[in-house]
């Protein structure tokens, strides 16, 4: 009787351990995207937006405006891929420059960059999936 109870306890404990040790697939992808995204950001975006996301004066907007990134979260893929022209307001300041297109970036690379940006510099939006980037890119204006 006593040994049966012990076995149940061991089984129960090991199940808990399993759940605890395993990250969900989304968490693993998040870590993976974030790390690659950081490298891509620093080689593709950091010159202008600065590696700490602070931008440069009124020439290049910062990426620290959480509200802007939140309300434009489905447009970010298009902005990165096709560039951006015209006036925008970020952090209460007006910017009117020309962001170059980066057509050579693949959907997964864009998802990695977005995951990095939207979870750095004070932002916290979680994983950007490649499928979502794919969907966003079909609706570019």
């Amino acid at each position, binding site marked *: 009787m006593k040994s049966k109870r012990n076995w149940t306890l061991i089984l129960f404990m090991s199940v808990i351990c399993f759940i605890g040790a395993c990250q969900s697939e989304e968490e693993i992808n998040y870590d993976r995207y974030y790390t690659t995204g950081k490298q891509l950001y620093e080689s593709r975006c950091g010159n*202008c937006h*600065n590696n700490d996301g602070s931008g440069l004066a*009124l*020439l290049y907007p910062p990426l620290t405006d959480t509200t802007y990134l939140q309300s434009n979260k489905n447009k970010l893929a298009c902005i990165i891929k096709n560039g951006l022209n015209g006036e925008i307001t970020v952090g209460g300041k007006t910017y009117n420059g020309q962001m*170059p297109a980066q057509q050579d970036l693949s959907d997964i690379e864009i998802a990695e960059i977005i995951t990095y940006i939207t979870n750095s510099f004070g932002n916290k939006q979680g994983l950007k999936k490649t499928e979502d980037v794919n969907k966003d890119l079909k609706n570019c204006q």
Partner: protein
Amino acid sequence: MRNLFYLLFLGLILSACNQTPDQLPYLGERAPIEKMVDGKKVIDTIYQSIPPFQFRNQDSLLISEKDFEGKIYVSDFFFTSCNTICPIMHRNMLKVYEKYKGNPQVKILSHTIDYKYDLPSRLKKYATKLGINDHQWEFVHGSKDSIYQFAAKNYLVAAYEDQKDPQGLVHQGWFVLVDKNRHLRGAYDGTKTDQVEQLLKDMDILLQENEK
């Protein structure tokens, strides 16, 4: 006796380490000349110097070496649509500007190498966006021949057009430090934070020399 010798030698080395250089080197070519001083022949050195120049600045005014008389200045080459090294360079140059803001002995001279598009009106927009509204930092435009040759020959900075480059223009990111006699006294990689820190230190040394 021998120990004493070693001790002295060690002392000498250590004192050499501790010394802060109070003079900056002269860069570029140099030539000896003979001069008469107090009726005696003396050999002196002529150092490379920036020749007289004329460029149009962000307010479409012609500026020349006369605007830099009695001043030390930092010079660089860039263009406004450059998205490779230029933003990093000018993020760093802003540190120079902010440190010496209002100091009448210090100026900054940025030459655009995009002679086609970076006309004074565009330079003005760029300067304003960067937050520069005075003439301590001049952004200047020159013709193609004058700017590429001027960069290479006088500031020892390479800049040229290249079809293979995605933006069509290639240039180096040196910040060149020039003294009040228009001699080259230092060259620093404007994209590296530690070299820009060194530039700021060297500018202080050069300013002390200015007061002598």
